[in-house]
């Protein structure tokens, strides 16, 4: 990239302020993990897979097969300020300019075929790419990505869900077979067994169900710490840590879920949250307004979430990532680790983007956390990410929570102006009488 291009692509985002020691440790671990992953995959040529976030990572962890999560890889590319360049490449290659950007940045990087600028010089050929077909676009993105890399795409179904329980989040740990439908779980187990067969044949590494059982219990321990901390944050006044710190301390261990480091880090995070609550320390010096953020994280501008803390005492206390640890991850294994895992994965996306699960959970969470107002991200080019937001906004308004919906993309920095977005939230809070 030329200097002129770098200037043109410069994002308006700002860094976030960190209060917890463990946040820096998590980021450092992830950085070291990236280096180690690169060593294993690029330098050592180990078999690896590219997978979506809502796929059964646990299978790969049990088989010790490195995975590159598409969303993590996208964030990595974005952090290198390459997203604008790669999206331009897609347009040059004939893709419509409004193509969904959330899941396609990795494909764009591959199609750009420019090892001199690509992270890690570009990825080697993976053993397989895996995605659940949760929208109309992902199978095309992953299918073309696999073709471009000369490998196979393993598509997993996102079966229809006819048992609709708005209170799913209160029952998902123990009653998962009813909440998520036994037949949907059985189908995903069958798919996972097909995936395991493919991986065993291609890599020579073996899957061990006993190891999965152990991993599932360790994940329960890890996510239990996160869930405990999320409960405490919801009850605490002031909020001890902003979502800018909740996200990395939840997500980074979740990429490594069930590992010794991940479990230990989750415990450490919980302890540091509890310490701040016990001492009365708040994310903001003078918390007055508790905000909810609905949507993926704005990775290109983490400072957005803390921008109004000083001026208005407005603190983003809730985003989905941390409280999701409880209902989405905790599973009583019940001697059936494959089924329990399938119940975790088979609706991971649906509960966040479809009624009645999305609105049911988010209204409940707003009440639990004493939310004063909510900001919803509405990506213009992504039906999946948009889905359920209007019905959820209406439900929140009906519950007395004012809602601001902002049109912006979580990975495309082009349409994001930090000052403008902060100003919008500021105006909204004043107009609705919250500030």
């Amino acid at each position, binding site marked *: 990239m030329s200097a002129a291009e770098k200037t043109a692509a410069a994002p308006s985002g700002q860094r976030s302020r960190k209060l917890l020691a463990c946040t820096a440790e998590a980021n450092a671990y992830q950085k070291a993990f990236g280096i180690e992953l690169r060593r294993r995959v690029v330098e050592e040529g180990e078999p690896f897979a590219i997978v979506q976030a809502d796929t059964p990572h646990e299978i790969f962890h049990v088989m010790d097969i490195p995975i590159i999560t598409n969303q993590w890889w996208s964030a990595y590319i974005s952090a290198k300020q390459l997203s604008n360049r790669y999206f331009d490449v897609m347009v040059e*290659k*004939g*893709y*419509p*300019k*409004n*193509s*969904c950007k959330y899941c396609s940045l990795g494909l764009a990087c591959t199609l750009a075929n420019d090892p001199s600028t690509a992270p890690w010089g570009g990825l080697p050929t993976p053993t397989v790419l895996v995605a659940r*077909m949760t*929208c*109309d*676009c992902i*199978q*095309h*993105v992953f*299918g*073309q990505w696999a073709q471009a890399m000369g490998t196979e795409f393993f*598509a*997993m*179904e*996102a*079966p*229809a869900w*006819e048992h*609709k329980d708005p209170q799913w989040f209160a029952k998902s740990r123990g009653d998962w077979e009813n909440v998520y439908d036994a*037949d949907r779980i059985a*189908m995903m187990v*069958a*798919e996972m067994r*097909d995936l395991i067969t493919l991986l065993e044949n291609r890599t020579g590494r073996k899957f061990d169900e006993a190891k999965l059982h152990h991993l599932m219990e360790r994940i329960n321990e890890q996510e239990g710490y996160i869930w405990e901390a999320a409960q405490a944050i919801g009850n605490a006044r002031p909020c001890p840590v902003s979502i800018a710190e909740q996200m990395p301390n939840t997500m980074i261990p979740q990429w490594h879920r069930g590992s010794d480091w991940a479990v230990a880090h989750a415990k450490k995070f919980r302890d540091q949250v509890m310490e701040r609550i016990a001492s009365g320390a708040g994310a903001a010096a003078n918390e007055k307004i508790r905000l909810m953020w609905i949507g993926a994280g704005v990775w290109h501008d983490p400072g957005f979430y803390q921008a109004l803390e000083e001026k208005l005492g407005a603190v983003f206390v809730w985003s989905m990532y941390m409280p999701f640890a409880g209902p989405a991850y905790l599973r009583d294994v019940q001697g059936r680790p494959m089924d329990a895992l399938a119940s975790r994965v088979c609706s991971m996306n649906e509960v966040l983007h*479809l*009624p*009645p699960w999305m*609105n049911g959970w988010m209204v409940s969470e707003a009440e639990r956390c004493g939310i004063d107002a909510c900001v919803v991200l*509405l990506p*213009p*080019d*992504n*039906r*999946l990410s*948009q*889905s359920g*937001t*209007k*019905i959820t906004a*209406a439900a929140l308004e009906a519950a007395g929570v004012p809602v601001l919906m902002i049109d912006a993309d979580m990975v495309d920095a082009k349409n994001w102006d930090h000052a403008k977005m902060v100003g919008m939230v500021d105006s909204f809070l004043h107009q609705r009488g919250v500030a």
Partner: protein
Amino acid sequence: MTMFAYLGPDMPHDLFAASGRCGGAVGWIIDRATPDADRWLESKFPLWTRSVLQDWADGALDHLEAVVFTRADDSAQRLYYYVCELRANGTIQGPEPLMLDIAKAGRASSLARTVASLRALQGRLGVDDAALEAGIAATNAVRAAQAAAMDEAAPLCLIAGTPAPDDRLRAMVRAAGWAAAGQSLTELWADLGQPVEQGSSDPVLAVARNLVASAQGPRAFVDRGAGLVAQAQALKARAVVLWLPEEEEALGWHLPVQIAALTLAGLPHLVLTRRDGAGRDGVDAEIAAFLQGVAA
């Protein structure tokens, strides 16, 4: 069940024929105002979903007992959940939404899922295997007759990309003095597809195999570049218009390969992306100018 209708591609028309109660696809008028639907549906939902949901809210579908949705189209399957929610909270009334879970991944588990979903719908419609077998025979006869009729047509400009919401794009082509080919969305959904195996021991399985293999919807795993050229050549098309509205999410991913295939085949083509879903953005003039250029 009295009368039902459907929304989405890859429908089991043989089963519907056997039931004798299918009223066809739910209709729409995409130019109408949809104030209620706009409060519930986000911007990437296509115009037809807004018209349908508005009709649902207005009671215009109350004559139907049920509407069958499929998962073979993202807009249709999402609309199903919205309708369920709005009915559950009493915001709207109207027919019962039913989901037919078409699984396209191509593995045995996907076929089994589709079979199970079809059997549930079969039971709901009160159609036994013998009646379904008769429905397959009758529908295959219609398929054969339609194939013969299609051979007689001589369209010159193929409209491809996103199926248009109605006849308006073809009318634009005809207004330019050309014959027009290319199915509208409801015509695509009503397309009976390939013949279904007759006399099998399991007619539901026979129908399911066709639906899973169907290339009709946006979730089909097919080569859309070669497929487009083959379609254009079969129709003896002299030009192709590739039209994709702003709301399109799936088919744009195949645009580069389709453009390359058309170029290689020497087929003149006009690419129209991010267009107004109702064709109110001057697309008629662009099509006319393009076809005039091809004719010259």
